[in-house]
């Protein structure tokens, strides 16, 4: 069975290419796929009848009980026959329905075939979770099929409506499935074998499952989506909305009936809503002028009827339900296909404009007549047999008062008679409307359809008759399902003639009333128009959508104020109110010590003083300097704590950030915008104090709450044994917690990219312009210059001493950075510190010699460096896998390298090299963006200003250099 589904999937995947090369000829080829499944179903038919059910089990996610279990029961066999048989015929029909030049063929063929596969999976699966998966697959695919023509707003809204309604039902169903699965099992056969007790949870779950079934089968109050879905191409309506998808709900009801039909509310939902739907659908069908919509409402009515019978819960009703499913699938798909042919032949579906088709389109009108008679339940059609047995099951219920009091049985019988009468009336309306010669209407001009076009409807129409005539042979194949129901005795086999019985009399009554209603159609239509529409699901749907939208607007307006300070304040308030207050009220303050070292108090006091001054100052640079002071204070505290690596890194970062601040702020106003006497200042300070206090209390309570020894007690041993290094902090970074480091350097990569894109906006390609390329024609200027880039700077910006010092220290800094990188494993340093020093060296070059000097020093793209670094880091993380190790494992190798002799090489150095490259790249990106990038923008602005005065010198550089 999985193979059949795979075949559908393959066909769906190949369909776009088939459709591109073969155009509509692809349809017969694709029809072979469901046809194959149909043939297989016929082959295994006897096994299913005799109870040797074909099964197949493929574990998928055993932990979730989500497995590809398939099982062909009689019920799934019947529905599968319909799904595959009608599917193949409809695909064949599509060959002539679509034109070769239809640009959407590639999509339609694929989606339609995939839908056939999903539908087949739905009826074959034995796992409730898989059933849900297939269920929602059909929903999504039908959304695509209904919205086949997305250019039309009606199509789009109809597709969305169908999607929302059926997905809503599907989600309700999922909750029900999980409720049952968690408490019992997800296996359908398991539930059948051992029905769970009807406790409160199970009953609620059953109701939710029924909501799913009813929404899928378009029962009141969900019925409105089905007529809307008629916006789809007619083959889609014939398949999805007659034979296949809408039967999924019925399939579910029939599947659950043997297990749960005793649940409270079961009969109210199935029988009650089903019969209400039958009457409402029939009533509305009589109001339609579009023959396709007429059929759609007729389908709603019939679906209600079948759900009612399938939900009845007796053996007789179960047999009748299967017969109804088959009969309805045959006659309704015939009629839809006929509508498609008529539509193509005449260009209209309006029964007020169609006239005189019956005799001129015999290949169509004959199958339509067969199907119509079957729909109306006229002997000897399949529809008659099934309706007869349905009436019989209700009559039996009323007689035996099981499973519910007989009064409801009589009410149900009456409702079915009314519904059947309406069915007869709208059948007459359909046949008359489509084919009759109407007085006063000129015969509709037609184009004669291709013989292949009418073939499918002809076959299906003949099927309606054949299934009726062969009724007695049908029963043994359906009976295995019927006997699984708990109530009633083994039913009489289906037959055309049971003698003169009550059901027969009721049938005759409904036929008579129906014909009378049709004859008196004008009077009845006037009566109908006086009855207000009581059941209007569509309006309710629209109101619900509007309410949801309004609710969303109101909620957004309340919660999204659009103000950054307000968002931040709400987060902080929650922080103070919940963890902060919890720490204050519940926490136990530990003993404290004043300090480790009195110097901490001195440094701390200076830091707090600097921080408070930041609040007061209005000058940007002063504020930056004061914040920098607290940063250097932190570095001092690191030294006092015994953390030399942190101290080095903090010093370097603090220095670099001061430079970066100055670079970025140089164009902004020197002072912050003044907001005098702003009332917000008070609450900002108050909230700040509250947050600070909360953090303080939490820090005390949390550190006092330590009860066990830290994990790091073994780090010294581990660092040396597994990490082969003596600097425990560095080994922690590149080995023990290297996954963390990998994540963090990725953050650096993202930030570097972000900075560059904010300044350069459009492209990161920064047009490297090296100073040598910009050299003056007279090379004397180069002589006696310490930095090449210096020549490109304005005279007043140059500092010879700075250039000399830069020339001297640049390479020393680079050497230091490499030393830090390689020594870091055993001594203070490492990739981060090394990278920062190298970056700082580049910053110095930039500051001394300008942007051309920077490109001279680093003649490559920063993004390249960052990417290379990430590649090296990830590569070295993965490399141990190749040698049978684990990711990020560290190995020490001793190699002999001339001229150094024995070298102790630790593999994690490569990871650290990656980190180093990323940090250098990030620094280069920062300087290129906030330094060079802003330089260039300044230069461009000046250029455009001066260009208005001096137009003859376009190159801004030349102008700068030309100055002596």
């Amino acid at each position, binding site marked *: 069975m999985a193979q059949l589904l795979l075949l559908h999937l393959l066909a769906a995947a190949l369909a776009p290419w088939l459709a591109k090369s073969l155009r509509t000829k692809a349809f017969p080829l694709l029809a072979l796929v469901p046809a194959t499944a149909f043939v297989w179903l016929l082959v295994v038919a006897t096994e299913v009848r005799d109870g040797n059910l074909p099964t197949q089990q493929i574990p998928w996610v055993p932990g979730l009980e989500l497995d590809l279990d398939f099982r062909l029961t009689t019920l799934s066999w019947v529905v599968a026959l319909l799904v595959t048989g009608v599917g193949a015929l409809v695909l064949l029909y599509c060959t002539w329905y679509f034109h070769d030049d239809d640009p959407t063929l590639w999509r339609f063929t694929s989606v339609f075939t995939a839908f056939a596969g999903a539908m087949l999976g739905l009826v074959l699966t034995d796992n409730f979770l898989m059933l849900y998966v297939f269920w929602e697959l059909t929903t999504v695919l039908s959304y695509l099929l209904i919205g086949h023509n997305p250019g039309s707003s009606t199509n789009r809204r109809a597709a969305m409506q169908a999607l929302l309604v059926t997905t809503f039902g599907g989600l309700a169903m999922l909750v029900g499935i999980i409720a049952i699965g968690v408490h019992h099992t997800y296996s359908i056969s398991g539930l059948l074998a051992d029905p769970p007790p009807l406790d409160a949870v199970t009953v609620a779950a059953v109701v939710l499952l029924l909501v799913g079934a009813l929404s899928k089968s378009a029962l009141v109050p969900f019925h409105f989506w089905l007529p809307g879905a008629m916006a789809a191409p007619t083959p889609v309506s014939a398949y999805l909305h007659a034979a296949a998808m809408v039967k999924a709900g019925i399939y579910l009801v029939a599947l659950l009936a043997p297990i749960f039909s005793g649940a409270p509310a079961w009969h109210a939902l199935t029988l009650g809503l089903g019969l209400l739907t039958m009457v409402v659908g029939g009533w509305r069908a009589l109001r339609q002028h579009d023959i396709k919509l007429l059929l759609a409402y007729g389908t709603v009515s019939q679906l209600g009827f079948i759900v009612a019978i399938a939900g009845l819960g007796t053996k007789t009703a179960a047999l009748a339900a299967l017969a109804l499913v088959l009969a309805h699938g045959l006659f309704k798909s015939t009629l839809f296909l006929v509508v498609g042919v008529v539509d193509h032949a005449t260009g209209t579906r309006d029964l007020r404009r169609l006239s005189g088709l019956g005799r001129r389109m015999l290949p169509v009108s004959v199958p339509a007549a067969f199907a119509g008679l079957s729909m109306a339940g006229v002997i000897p059609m399949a529809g008659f047999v099934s309706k007869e047995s349905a009436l019989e099951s209700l009559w039996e219920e009323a007689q035996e008062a099981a499973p519910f009091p007989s009064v409801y049985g009589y009410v149900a019988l009456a409702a079915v008679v009314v519904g059947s009468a309406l069915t007869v009336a709208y059948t007459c309306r359909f046949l008359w409307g489509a084919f009759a010669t109407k007085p006063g209407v000129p015969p509709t001009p037609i184009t004669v359809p291709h013989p292949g076009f009418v073939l499918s409807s002809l076959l299906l129409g003949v099927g309606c008759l054949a299934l009726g005539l062969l009724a007695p042979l049908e029963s043994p194949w359906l009976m295995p399902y019927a006997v699984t129901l708990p109530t009633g005795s083994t039913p009489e086999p289906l037959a055309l003639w049971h003698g003169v019985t009550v059901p027969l009399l009721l049938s005759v009554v409904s036929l008579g009333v129906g014909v009378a209603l049709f004859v008196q159609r004008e009077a009845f239509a006037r009566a109908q128009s006086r009855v207000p529409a009581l059941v209007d699901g569509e309006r309710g749907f629209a109101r619900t959508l509007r309410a949801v939208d309004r609710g969303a607007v109101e909620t957004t307006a309340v919660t999204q104020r659009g103000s950054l300070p307000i968002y931040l304040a709400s987060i902080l308030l929650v922080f103070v109110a919940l963890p902060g207050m919890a720490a204050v009220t519940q926490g136990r303050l530990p003993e404290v010590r004043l300090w480790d070292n009195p110097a901490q108090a001195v440094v701390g006091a200076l830091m707090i003083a600097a921080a408070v001054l930041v609040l007061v100052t209005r000058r940007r640079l002063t504020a930056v300097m004061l914040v920098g002071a607290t940063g250097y204070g932190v570095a001092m505290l690191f030294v006092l704590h015994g953390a030399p690596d942190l101290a080095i890194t903090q010093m370097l970062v603090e220095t670099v950030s001061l430079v970066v601040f100055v670079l970025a702020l140089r164009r902004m106003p020197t002072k912050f915008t003044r907001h005098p006497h702003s009332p917000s200042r008070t609450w900002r300070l108050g909230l700040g104090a509250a947050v600070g*206090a909360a953090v303080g209390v939490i820090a005390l309570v949390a550190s006092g709450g330590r009860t066990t020894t830290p994990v790091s007690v073994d780090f010294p041993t581990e660092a040396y044994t597994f990490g082969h290094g003596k600097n425990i902090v560095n080994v922690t970074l590149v080995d023990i917690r290297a996954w963390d480091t990998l994540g963090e350097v990725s953050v650096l990569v993202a930030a570097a990219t972000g900075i560059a894109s904010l300044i350069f906006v459009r492209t990161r390609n920064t047009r490297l312009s090296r100073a040598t390329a910009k050299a003056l024609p007279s090379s004397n200027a180069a002589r006696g210059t310490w930095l090449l880039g210096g020549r490109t700077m304005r005279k007043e910006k140059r500092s010879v001493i700075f250039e000399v010092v830069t020339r001297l220290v640049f390479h020393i800094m680079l050497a230091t950075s490499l030393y830090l990188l390689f020594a870091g494993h055993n001594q203070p340093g490492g990739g981060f510190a090394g990278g920062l020093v190298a970056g700082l060296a580049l910053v110095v070059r930039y500051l001394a010699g300008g942007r051309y000097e920077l490109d001279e020093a680093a003649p490559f793209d920063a993004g390249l460096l960052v990417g290379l670094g990430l590649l090296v880091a990830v590569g070295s993380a993965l490399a141990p896998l190749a040698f049978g190790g684990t990711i990020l494992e560290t190995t020490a190798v001793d190699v002999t390298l001339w001229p150094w002799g024995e070298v102790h090489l630790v593999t994690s150095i490569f990871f650290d090299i990656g980190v180093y490259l990323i940090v250098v790249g990030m620094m280069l990106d920062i300087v290129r963006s906030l330094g060079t990038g802003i330089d260039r923008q300044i230069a461009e602005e000046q250029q455009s200003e001066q260009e208005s005065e001096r137009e003859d010198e376009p190159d801004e550089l030349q102008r700068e250099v030309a100055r002596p």
Partner: protein
Amino acid sequence: MTALARAGFESTLTPNLTLVLVVVGLVAVGTALALDRSLVRVLLGMVLIGNGVAVLYLVVSGRAGRAPFVGEDPATMSDPLPQAMVLTAIVISLATIGFLLALSYRLWQISGTDDVPDDAEDARIQRLARDDETSETYDRSEESTTTSDERAEAGESRG
């Protein structure tokens, strides 16, 4: 090197009050700045909070000690794990500074100030809510998807 003892990190902590006070001071001032409208002050606030949190890690790493190198006496060593965490945080704070500065610069370039304005889109939604309106993507078409029934009695065929 053979006899590597377990390090002597305390299983109960007596927090360092001085450091806790430094944390409180830095975080309080940082928070007040972060609530400002000026993006540069927000950034400075974030840096201060970041510095405060770095000190907080010192508080929870226990007593001060010798630098954590193999070969030092494990009994008097400082805890290396929080240090490794803070080290990457320090470098990331540099990346954050660079990013927020680039953002402030861009904001200044576009609007002439680095003050963060209120979101115009949110203001529009508040206007919609005040006027009892639906959102603009809402399909307000009242037309039935079935041009069919009673309401469309006078309508013509869908063709």
